[in-house]
């Protein structure tokens, strides 16, 4: 700050004029000088201090327009209220509450009595409101006073959080239930065997041991499925990177799932050799689960067809088709839910964990693929997995196995025996 700006020229000139006037009035020069010195001195001392920050001015600069610039692009819905009306709503808030709310009474936008408790003179600063925009949504509204007229309302969507925590609780409850059922059977039979003290005949004891083994196997399957599910979920956002020849993988996994005693029912129809980016173990698990389901729930002697071909040019399609009683249409949307079973008794009897399709869905999602289930009651179910093809490798671009130039392998239907 330059010193010339701080010298109060007007004050000093007034003092000088007074000095001259005193002299003209014939007052003693010494007294007049003293007056001048004290006057000018006090002026300089006052001017030396920095001026008070112009508080009122900064207040005024916080106009509606400047606030608008500040908050417009925030992803959190923000509303500025001027007394009882809405002066401003940023983009997110307009999308949430509708563009009509600006200029209206704040109650028009909030409506809910809980939310209205935020307004008025002795208002609270926070409210949790249900069903503000859509039924069942949960919003936390925070109110911050800006000055005696303006206040800001901030809307935080808590719906997703509540959903997640509910889903989590449900999952834990379901999983514990599923784990407890086989455990109860094991404990019961072990107790019976112990209390029998040899009085049980050998065939009965063997039968009991068989049940114990089966239940333990089920427990084992359940725990491994839970582990793979949580592993897939943990990796959900990392794209898999290994280049995989699907033809070999599908054949291997399908045979593996069928095992030696069901292999006659398996019909492989591999019409292409697509390469995808994937995780070998996970894709094998997808095929294994689908083929196992088809063999398990299809008619006992009917064949299960596994197809592999290309769809829409850039997708590999794996389809598993069984012939059986099919699934009712209203159940199809729930099939991929964890622990959902169309027929609980039958699923448990055949050692199902209720997690197979949930795992499939998560793996397919991780591979950015699609899972479609179609079913006709009385005829059978068809599960189709579509996976995006890998980009051809730069050095091997010409020899990519799945391009149109190359003659696709003759569609062959081999009956395995």
């Amino acid at each position: 700050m330059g010193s010339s700006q701080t010298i109060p020229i007007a004050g000093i000139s007034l003092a000088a004029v007074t000095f001259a006037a005193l002299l003209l009035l014939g007052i003693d020069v010494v007294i007049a000088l003293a007056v001048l010195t004290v006057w000018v001195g006090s002026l300089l001392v006052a001017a030396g201090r920095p001026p008070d920050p112009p508080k009122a001015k900064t207040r005024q600069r916080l106009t509606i327009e400047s606030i608008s610039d500040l908050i417009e692009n925030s992803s959190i819905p923000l509303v500025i209220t001027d007394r009882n009306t809405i002066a401003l709503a940023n983009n997110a808030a307009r999308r949430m509450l509708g563009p009509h709310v600006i200029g209206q009474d704040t109650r028009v936008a909030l409506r809910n009595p809980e939310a209205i408790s935020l307004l008025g003179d002795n208002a609270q600063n926070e409210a949790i409101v249900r069903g503000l925009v859509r039924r069942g949504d949960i919003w936390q509204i925070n109110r911050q006073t800006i000055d005696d007229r303006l206040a800001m309302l901030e809307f935080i969507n808590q719906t997703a959080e509540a959903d997640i925590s509910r889903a989590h609780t449900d999952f834990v409850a379901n999983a514990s239930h599923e784990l407890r059922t086989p455990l109860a059977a094991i404990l019961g039979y072990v107790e019976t065997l112990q209390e029998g003290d040899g009085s049980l005949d050998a065939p009965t004891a063997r039968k009991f041991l068989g049940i114990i083994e089966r239940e333990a196997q089920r427990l084992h399957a359940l725990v491994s499925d839970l582990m793979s599910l949580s592993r897939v979920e943990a990796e959900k956002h990392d794209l898999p990177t290994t280049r995989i020849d699907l033809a070999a993988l599908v054949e291997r996994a399908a045979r593996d799932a069928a095992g030696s005693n069901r292999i006659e029912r398996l019909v492989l129809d591999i019409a292409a050799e697509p390469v995808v980016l994937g995780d070998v173990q996970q894709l094998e698990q997808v095929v294994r689960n689908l083929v196992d389901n088809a063999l398990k729930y299809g008619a006992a002697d009917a064949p299960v067809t596994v197809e592999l071909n290309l769809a829409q040019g850039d997708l590999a399609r794996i389809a598993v088709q069984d012939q059986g009683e099919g699934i009712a249409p209203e159940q199809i949307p729930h099939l991929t839910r964890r622990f959902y079973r169309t027929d609980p008794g039958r699923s448990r009897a055949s050692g199902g964990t209720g997690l197979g399709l949930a795992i499939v869905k998560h793996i397919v999602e991780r591979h950015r693929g699609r899972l479609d289930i179609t079913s006709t009651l009385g005829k059978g179910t068809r599960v189709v997995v579509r996976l995006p093809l890998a980009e051809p490798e730069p050095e091997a671009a010409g020899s990519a196995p799945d391009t149109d130039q190359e003659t696709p392998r003759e569609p062959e239907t081999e009956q395995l025996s």
Partner: protein
Amino acid sequence: MAEHTVKAFDEDITRLRGLIAEMGGLAEVAIAESLDALLRGDEVLAEQVVLRDKRMDALEMEVDKLAVRIIALRAPMADDLREVIAALKIAGVLERIGDYSKNIAKRTGMIEGRARFEPLTLLPTMGEVASEMVHDVLTAYAARDPDLAREVIATDAKVDGFYNSIFRNLVSYMVENPSTISSAAQLLFVARNIERIGDHATNVAEMVHFAATGVYPPEGDR
């Protein structure tokens, strides 16, 4: 709506709309909470619904006073007049909806053997549809959106359908379980109340349409 030369008039209209919105919010919550109370047998919540209805009545009176004042002092014309008249009528209807909810809440203590009372499970869905109608009609009112108002009018058929099916269901239930007749009869009234709420929401929608466009929606929609 265009601004008026007399700024106080704008303020009055804004305040009127705010009052209507507050009443609507109360009505919406009252429907949901009264059914919740009925379902769970929560008499404390039911009491709250009844108490909150007082606030509705007070708001209605406030709307009446303000509307009369606006008409007397500002002599509104055209869409302004429609707006004020519509607000006056909507306030009456919303108060009525509040009364129906209060009525539902008051029946909370009259249902016996709640846990195994099967017909009880049908009501919440019907209540949700009705409360959604109230919600949407208020959004239509706030946005002066005649299209949304017409959608609300169309939804009423759904509530009527629910009412018919619940009615049949309850009657056959009463025939099979004569011991539950007194509780089931209460539920008939509840279903009836919800059906009336739907009708009233339709009335509000018609008024919203009228306030926004100056004509009532075509008969085919109703």
